């Protein structure tokens, strides 16, 4: 038998000297975890606590300027702000839900198409990988040229099929749907990869059994395959919604500060960035961030509950 390091009593009374190695082995659980935990504590927990504190002060201007404690006033300011905050919250919800819905449906269709092996599979997988790893800012710049109203390829293509030029990214009402399209292009591949991993981990038996029982393709998908990969579907929704809620790079790259001149793509993340680093309104920005953070946590909590439900 090996020496047990998890219990304080020594095996068979062997009187080993208490060396550093003994101590390290006995406490390896925390010894291994501590450095990462301390790092996370310093760089994440502490800033988070500070953000809560800042949200209760009137901090603004220079970071060295003194600030006063003003209680929940920032939260009242933010929550009664129908000019910037609520539209930004609405845009965040619109962006996240539309992008997520399209990505999940498209992702599922593509994953089903890729499910069974075929010739040329390798090339499709390469095509799926490339948008996924492309630098979001560079991708934003790429779309900026493609969607340019005068010289962009998108309008040229529309012209080929007889559609007059559209404002797309530069239009007040078309900008947000266009950025959603960009998100769909880049992140549907991620959904495909996750769902495909789920599909390939399934055993063939339930599907075969349903086929023998005479179920058609649609019935087999909705009553056999989909329920079986529901936990994976929820993971995909979870990962995608977290990132979609926080989208910043492509929005900033295509529309610049404040989400464009009419704030047409200003989501909560872009708004909080502008408040912090364009206007230096740290107190109000922190309040926006705390509200944003609570929304994300609530969203996650609901989804993880659903995942536990789906697994049973």
């Amino acid at each position, binding site marked *: 038998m*090996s020496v047990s*390091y998890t219990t304080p009593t020594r095996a068979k009374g062997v009187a080993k000297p208490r060396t550093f190695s003994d101590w*390290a*082995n006995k406490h*390896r*659980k*925390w010894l*291994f*975890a501590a*450095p*990462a935990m301390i790092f996370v504590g310093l*760089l*994440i*927990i502490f*800033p988070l606590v*500070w*953000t809560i504190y*800042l949200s209760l002060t009137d901090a603004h201007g220079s*970071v060295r300027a003194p600030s006063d404690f003003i209680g929940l006033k920032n939260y009242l300011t933010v929550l009664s702000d129908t000019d910037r905050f609520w539209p930004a919250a609405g845009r965040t919800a619109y962006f996240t839900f539309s992008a997520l819905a399209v990505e999940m449906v498209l992702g599922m*269709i*593509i994953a089903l*198409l*890729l499910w069974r092996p075929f010739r040329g599979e390798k090339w*499709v*997988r390469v*095509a*799926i*990988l*490339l948008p*996924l*790893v*492309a*630098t979001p*800012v*560079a*991708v934003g710049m*790429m*779309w900026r*040229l493609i969607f340019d109203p*005068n*010289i962009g*390829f998108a309008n040229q293509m529309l012209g080929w099929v007889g559609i007059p030029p559209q404002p797309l990214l530069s239009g007040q009402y078309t900008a947000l749907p266009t950025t959603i399209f960009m998100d769909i292009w880049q992140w549907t591949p991620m959904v495909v*990869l996750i769902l495909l*991993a789920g599909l390939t981990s399934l055993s063939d038996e339930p599907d075969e059994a349903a086929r023998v029982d005479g179920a058609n393709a649609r019935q087999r998908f909705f009553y056999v395959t989909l329920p079986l990969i529901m*936990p*994976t579907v929820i*993971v*995909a929704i979870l990962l995608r919604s*977290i990132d979609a809620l*926080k989208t910043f*790079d492509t929005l*900033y790259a295509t529309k610049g500060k404040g989400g464009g001149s009419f704030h047409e793509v200003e989501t909560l993340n872009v708004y*909080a*960035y502008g408040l912090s*680093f364009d206007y230096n309104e740290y107190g109000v920005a*922190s309040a926006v961030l705390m509200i*944003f953070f609570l929304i*994300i*946590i609530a969203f*996650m909590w609901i989804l993880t509950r659903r995942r536990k439900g789906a697994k049973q």
Partner: protein
Amino acid sequence: MSKSLLSAGSTQVDPHGTARPVRRRKPLSVRAYKWFRVGALTVVVLALLAPLAWLFASSLKTNVDIYDATKTIVFTPTLENYVNVITRNNYFVYIFNSFWVAFVSTVLSLVLGVPAAYAMSRFTMQRSALVVLMARVIPGISLLVPWYYVFSNMRMVGGFTVLILSHMFVALPLIVYIMMSYFDSMPLELEESAQVDGLTPIGAFQKITLPLSVGGMATAGILAFIFSWNNFMFALVLSGAHTKTLPVAIFDFVSYASIDWGGLMAAATVVTVPIMVIALFTQKYIVSGMTAGATKG
């Protein structure tokens, strides 16, 4: 509605026996699906690749050609934009900055993250794991404000240290997440038998577990490197003139007056192509990292 359904159904009913038409129909639908699949996947591949091809083509055009609708597809390629980007704009410095920040933050995160993931997996420290994974959920800006407060008071904003620390915030949770699911799927028996043979638990981790998890560490490291290389928001606030990374440097081509489209596309290509090349060679690792933990219960 019901009438059309009935008539559609009635054409398939064979009065002499129901078995034959069913047998005949099935291969047809299988063949039809095959062609549908080929067609649909071709559309998907084209939709995914066409914009990237457009980006690359534009980077090889002069600004005059970019404005010329007749030269959309047929044009004389030139490397002028790339020469411009690299000579006039110090791009080698930015390429080095991006690489250095991504590399150091990935290595440090592996050093911190792998043992932590091991402990969290073997001792099922779910609450600790949750704290680390929270970093994946928190909006980066909510950390940037306090970081900016602290680091600018320490006069560290603009230096590599702050940039690397902030990119570790991206890399560490990713590494812990991927390595935890890797260790979870690794059999305990190997370490146990190593301990029977006289190794201490830490010795077993060093000599048995670590060498066996090189694949997992490669997966986690490659993904962490890519995410760090692609990161924009932290560098936008925390980098200075000498530590600027590539995603931030791209903005040099955008001014209020005009955009140097050719240069911008060349710069965007310079940022993305290295990461795409890495991705092509390490495809298997990237896919396994992206889908880590997605299928387990």
